[in-house]
Each structure stands twice: as C-alpha cells, then as structure tokens.
C-alpha cells in the first residue's frame, strides 16, 4: 500500500503547494499505512529539492529531470506521472489544486480511468477507504466523496493543508523518461504578471478586496497601500461588480465565477456581500468588513465590522497596521 504525491515546482524551485500536497499525502499514508512517495518532475538539478520533500514527510522521492519540465509540460508530465503510478499501484494520488494541478490531475485520471475529487478541503481515511470533503456550488454546500475505484485521485485546495514538518531521510530514485515526441504537441511558456512579487489571491494569507463602494478604479491606491502595509503575504482581490465594470482584472475576482479563497484574514472593503461573493470567501479564518451600510449582508459574515466611509477609514487602517507591524 502506498500513496503518491505530485510535488509541483517552477524553474527548479519547489512551490509551497508541493509541501501542502506532501502534508495532505502524509495524512492519508498515516491512515492507511505504507509509504509516501513524492514525484518531482523538473529541470536538471531539481533533485536537490528532494531532501526538502523528506523534511515534510516523503519516504521516497522519484525524480525525473528534463529541460522540458522547467515550466509546465502537460503531456510529458502526464506520461511520467502515469508511469510512476502504474508501477506503484498506489491507493491514492494527491495533487495541489493549483493552476498546474487542476490541469494535470484530470489528464492523469483519464489515463488511469480513476476517480478524481477536485479542490479538496479535508481528507480522512475510514476503514481503509479514502474520503474527501470538497466544496460544491462554490462552497454553498460541501460534499463528502467516496471512491469506488483505485487509485483515489485528489487535488487539495491551496491553504487547506499548511505544511507540517515530519522529517525523514527520503530515498531518492531517478526515473528515466523517454519523452515520446509524438505526444509533445504542446509548447507552454510562462509570462510573469505585473504583480509577480505578490502572491496570487487564491494563495495569499491575507486578502484585501474592494467593491463598488470604492467608487472608481482610481481609488485602488488606497487598497494597494493597505496591502503593502500588511506585508508580502497579502494580495488584492475584487468583487464581481468591479471586475464587470472593468475597474480590476478578472484574475483578482473573488466569488462563484472568480476565485474561491481561504486566507487567514479577508478584508471586504466597500463590498455588500452578494451570495455569489460570499461563496468565494466565507471559509476565510477571519473576515473584516468595512461598509457604509450597516445593513449590508457582509456584516452577517464578518468577524469584525466597521460601519462608515471607506475613504475615511482606509488611510487610518493602513497607518495603524503599519504601526502595529513595525512594533513586532
């Protein structure tokens, strides 16, 4: 019995989501018994990252390196992963529900004729069977999923399993892969975004979202100042209304037709809190709402609320947070 985890990297560096996937994989392995294998596909030299995967609980790391794996290589990575899975006959395979994991996992599931649970927030092992809890209807309900075929494939929502150290000396094995040229029909290259120094809204620890109450795109500097004050793990978000109005890019939209986020703190600034928006942020640990309308539905969800003019409150909030953080 064994569990396999896909450890995502970019340009040879492990992503945080890889460690999260290993931690989630550890939960299943500890429930089932057996060994946890991490599969690391990356450019030459990526092998150096294997020890880090051991630090978070991988018993074994299978490494396949190729220049083609520096970025995302959907076809080659599918082939390599299917090969490892077919040789190992695992009970479960864990991915991160990152952009890469959400593209790769269904390809692998289709090849293996396996069931896949996407965006899992909680994993359990009941009587030797893997079960997963995952949001459906953008989090308006949660489904407990069982698997009727093996292996069970899961992609774990970013932030749901913060990495936990479980140090061990992982055995490292090289996998030689002959990439089939006929299968490499796609070429994928990465283009950095304008805000590459900030985490993606779906992966940030703190999210500051603005809504129609911000009155116009020119006022976003106030939110950017707050994000800057909150430090490098904070990111900007937006409501559907302001994305539809063209004030902000869709990549920032939080809600049912945008991103679903679970940060430590979610600031809803000038957002009334439509159902479709709530669906995207209600699993945040702490929600702060600032809105001039005391009856806005967002206050029913908020941990802390302030009623009033966002243009008066925001500069003060930025200043106080900057002061509080500089004390530490």
């Amino acid at each position, binding site marked *: 019995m064994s569990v396999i985890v896909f450890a995502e990297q970019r340009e040879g560096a492990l992503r945080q989501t890889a460690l999260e996937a290993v931690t989630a994989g550890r939960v299943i392995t500890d429930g089932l018994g057996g060994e946890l294998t991490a599969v690391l596909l990356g450019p030459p030299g990526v092998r150096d990252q294997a020890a880090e995967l051991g630090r978070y609980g991988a018993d074994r790391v299978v490494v396949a390196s190729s220049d083609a794996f520096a970025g995302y290589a959907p*076809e080659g990575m599918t082939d390599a992963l299917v090969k490892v899975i077919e040789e190992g006959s695992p009970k479960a395979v864990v991915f991160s529900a990152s952009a890469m994991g959400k593209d790769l996992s*269904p390809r692998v599931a289709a090849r293996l004729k396996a069931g896949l649970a996407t965006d899992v927030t909680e994993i359990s092992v009941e009587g030797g069977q893997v079960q997963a809890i995952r949001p459906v209807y953008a989090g308006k309900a949660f489904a407990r999923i069982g698997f009727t075929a093996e292996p069970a494939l899961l992609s774990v929502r970013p932030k749901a399993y913060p990495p936990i150290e479980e140090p061990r000396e992982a055995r490292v094995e090289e996998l030689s892969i002959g990439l089939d040229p006929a299968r490499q029909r*796609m070429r994928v290259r990465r283009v950095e975004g304008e805000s590459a120094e900030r985490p993606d809204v779906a992966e940030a620890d703190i999210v500051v979202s603005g809504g129609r109450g911000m009155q116009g795109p020119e006022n976003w500097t106030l939110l950017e100042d707050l994000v800057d004050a909150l430090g490098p793990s904070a990111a900007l978000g937006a409501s559907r209304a302001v994305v539809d109005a063209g004030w902000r890019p869709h990549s920032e939209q939080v809600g049912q*037709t945008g991103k679903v986020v679970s940060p430590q703190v979610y600031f809803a600034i000038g957002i009334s809190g439509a*159902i479709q928006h709530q669906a995207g942020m209600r699993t945040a640990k702490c929600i702060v709402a600032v809105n001039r309308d005391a009856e806005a539905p967002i206050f029913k969800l908020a941990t802390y609320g*302030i009623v009033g003019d966002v243009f008066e409150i925001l500069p003060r909030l930025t200043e*106080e947070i900057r002061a509080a953080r500089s004390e530490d």
Partner: protein
Amino acid sequence: MNIIVCVKRVPDSETRIKISEDGVSIDPAGVKFVLNPYDEFAIEEALVLKERAGAGTVAVMTLGGEEAKETLRTALAMGADTAVLLKGAPSPDGLGTAEKLADAISGREYDLILFGKQGIDDDNLQVPAMVAELLGLPCATVVVDLQIDGERVRAKREVEGGHEVAEFDLPGVISAQKGLNEPRYASLKGIMMAKKKPLEEVEVGDAAARVEIKELMPPAERAVGEILGEGPAAVPELVRRLREEAKAL
C-alpha cells in the same frame, strides 16, 4: 471551421442551495437553472471563430435529461447551428461525463472542441482535459485569450501570478475562462430561429461513477461577528482584535 461546444445546465449563481431529504443532492424546488455561465464564453468564442473563418458549423452538445433541451435552445438562440442531446444521467464523476462526450464526439467532424472552464455546480474542472486525453488531443484550460492562425492555436491561460501561453496545432480542446470575450445576448430573432434548428437526441445511458457523493452538507455556520464601531475611531480596536484575538498581523 467546425466547432463543438460542450455545455451544461446548472443552478443560477444567485441560487440559495438547499439540500434535499436524501442528503446527497440539492432540492431543485425553486431553483432557477441556466446555461453554465462559463459556457457562454465558449459559445461566444465559437461563434466569433466561425464568423471569422466564413464557413463551418457550431454544434452544442450536452449530457442530460429532457430538461437539458432548454439549455441547448439557449445556446442555439445565441447563434449555434445545431444541438446534440446525449440522453443519460450525468455523474458526479467528471470522467463518467467525459467518456460519454468523447464517445459521441469521436465519430463527428471537428477542428476545435470548446468548454466552459468548469460547471458552477460540481466545480470539478475535469471534463475538458479528460475529453482531450480520451481523444488524444492537445488541450489548454482556463483560457483568457485565444488566437488561431490557420492550424496554429495560441492560448493564454491564467496561472498564479501570471499567464502561460500554450501553442499547438488543431484539432484541440480549449476551456474558456471569464475574460475571453463578452458573450452576446440572444436576440428575439435568435430565440425564434432556435426553435427551428436541428436538435439531435442520442440515447447514451448513464455515466459511470468512480466517485460517489456520500453526503451533502451545508457550509459550517460562521461564529457571530461583531460591529466594532463607526468611522475611523473604530480602527484601533480593529487592529487590536486582529493582533490579539485573531493573531493575524
């Protein structure tokens, strides 16, 4: 250019979800069902590509029961030429649905298969890439910009902190993200014409399920929060709570 667009009937995003007595499905009473919002971007893209090519057809396809005809008619009203209803029950397993679609597509003529990036009911994000894999086609998912020059496809997809640009030759599969285009509204003429457009029905049986929903639960209730005050004067208390209670700064 011949394009197949796969669509789904889903509850409207403003719907309140109520769990039915069986504990594994939603109560459909009072739920407004619509064409999946992401599928509108896929249909729009197909119509623009066909118009630009000056030839070809746009066929819409779905797996579902009699009620899914309404969804297909909505797509026909937007401008799709033909519709195919694969009659059978979808499954919570994306692969079960993908197998039915891939089977039905494999005997047809197409250059491009388009999907919305996800159905806003199951939120699986599985079927487009699975159909591609089953048919042996290249595929780019979550696409916000699509350029097709002859056979060459250039698809820009959203990833964390940036974009990826995927390039491949047709035929292939694309799943549409919001931002790809502005979907058109069906005109009155379009709605009238949709009633006369061909809608083919194929019995395909129920989709296989390798996952099962054992229980459907409402989201956890959030602890009751607190309004800390009005205006900037309440800010110091908020910052204190964030540091001391939420331990978040």
